[in-house]
């Protein structure tokens, strides 16, 4: 089995608004992609074969590629874009990824269901269309069959569904479905000798981000910021006499 897992480098999840506005944040692997990587590693451990990590992003994305290799991925392809192209739309990103993935002729392509930064939630689906593969989204369980795969999809409102797809297939993985492994010291050491092929590329985004700004409060909220005791007292006062909910 050849399993491609597509990962993205994003600003750390707990970055504050100020850090995001001033670009003074640290980066990490997109959390849903970390679950896709985990699923890919477990599939390989069960079926044999290799896990190839693919990431489109600037040079600094090498950080999460090494992390994936340290966790056990076998090799990597880094589609290296310019630092200023982080805002490109899912179609242009998936186009770059598809060019790198196509020659690999994989059985599976796994990725997270969405990114924590732009949140388009569509790179996997667009990839499937560009590669001509079947796909399924928001996957909770993966059950490989002979030449096929049966997956459990999450639907809305507590509903689920099983779907069987022919291989090759693209699956977008839901967060939280398995426990994530940590990289071992041995893994980190080994990662240094693993192949990372760098392909320079330029994203051609059709959707343009014109402006990024802090959202205005849509509701008139009353916020209490004092010490816990005073704030709690003021809040309870409001809830009792103004909102009349307690």
């Amino acid at each position, binding site marked *: 089995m050849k399993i491609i897992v597509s990962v993205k480098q994003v600003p750390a999840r707990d970055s504050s608004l100020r850090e995001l506005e001033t670009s003074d944040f640290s980066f990490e692997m997109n959390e849903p992609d970390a679950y896709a990587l985990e699923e890919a590693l477990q599939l390989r451990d069960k079926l044999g074969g290799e896990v190839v990590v693919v990431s489109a992003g600037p040079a600094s994305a090498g950080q999460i590629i090494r992390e994936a290799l340290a966790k056990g991925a076998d090799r990597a392809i880094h589609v290296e874009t310019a630092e200023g192209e982080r805002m490109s739309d899912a179609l242009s990103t998936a186009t770059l990824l598809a060019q790198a993935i196509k020659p690999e002729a994989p059985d599976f392509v796994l990725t997270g269901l969405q990114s924590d930064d732009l949140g388009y939630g569509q790179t996997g689906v667009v990839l499937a269309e560009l590669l001509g593969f*079947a796909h399924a989204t928001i996957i909770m369980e993966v059950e490989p069959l002979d030449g096929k795969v049966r997956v459990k999809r999450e639907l809305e409102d507590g509903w689920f569904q099983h*779907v*069987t*797809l022919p291989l090759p297939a693209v699956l977008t993985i839901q967060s939280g479905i398995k426990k994530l492994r940590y990289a071992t010291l041995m893994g980190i050491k080994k990662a240094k000798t693993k192949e990372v092929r760098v392909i320079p590329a330029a994203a051609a985004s059709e959707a343009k981000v014109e*402006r*990024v700004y802090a959202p205005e409060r849509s509701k008139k909220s009353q*916020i209490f910021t004092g010490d*816990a005791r005073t*704030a*709690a007292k003021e809040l309870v006062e409001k809830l009792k006499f103004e909102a009349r909910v307690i």
Partner: protein
Amino acid sequence: MSVLVVLEKRGGLEALAAAYRLSADVEAVVIGSAEATAPVKTYVLNHPLLAQYTPDGYTAALEQLIRAVNPEAVVFPHTYQVRDYAPKLATRFGQPFISDVTDIQDKVHFVRQLFQGKLNADVSCAGRPLFVSVQAGAFRAAESSGSGTASVFEVRLDAAQIRSQPEAPFRESQRSVDLGAAEIIVSVGRGIKDKENIAVVEELAQVLNAELAASRPICDNGWLTMERQVGSSGQTVSPKMYLAVGISGAIQHLVGMKGSKTVVAINKDENAPIFESADYGIVGDLFEVVPALIEEIKKVRG
């Protein structure tokens, strides 16, 4: 500009409202059944192969209609089903899909949330047709009354085009917690940090005579059962009071509790998106605020 709205059981009339923000020239399409009705000309796509949703079937059917009708924009509600096929459909037209839009300004700027709702972005796209989906609750649903006309559009589909074989949808287990009926809900998120700390919010729920709920990560960790999850993948609730403790307010959570009458948020990050939806909020450490709140509530509740 001519706009085609894709109707689904959920959110179709909100997508219609968004479409009217682009143009008065709006038509709609419904797939599989004529269940969703809109007060505009509505194409009905019926075919035995569309009886069950598949991304291949829906993409092929809508591609045929769009090529025939040639709209300048296609607007969808942002449901899980739309997320599953609309990016594929847009790719067929070589177009990006501007997903999960919360507002439209000057007919050309589509407002999207970035970084889990911490920032907004205005996105524009020159190519046509535009493919746009709108976030649940972002647009006030259009009136469903008025005269619409249904027009059957013949789709050509071949069984060999449909690669996935879906089985019947199911629910994991019978729900024993009905959050929908709760008057007050105390909901807990990542900020609680550890399973042992759940007891803190349990006590708060108890003094308020409230149901305990949670955001997704808490249920993923098994700290509370899945049936207590609020959000797009969990339950949708509309209590008199929703008290969010240590919940940052990701879009997926907000859509599940937007209908609450009074929203109270406790979070240490003053810029957490949950405060956007809150009527009252306390910025502070929940481990100090919640015990203080329990004390105060006990006082007024005697």
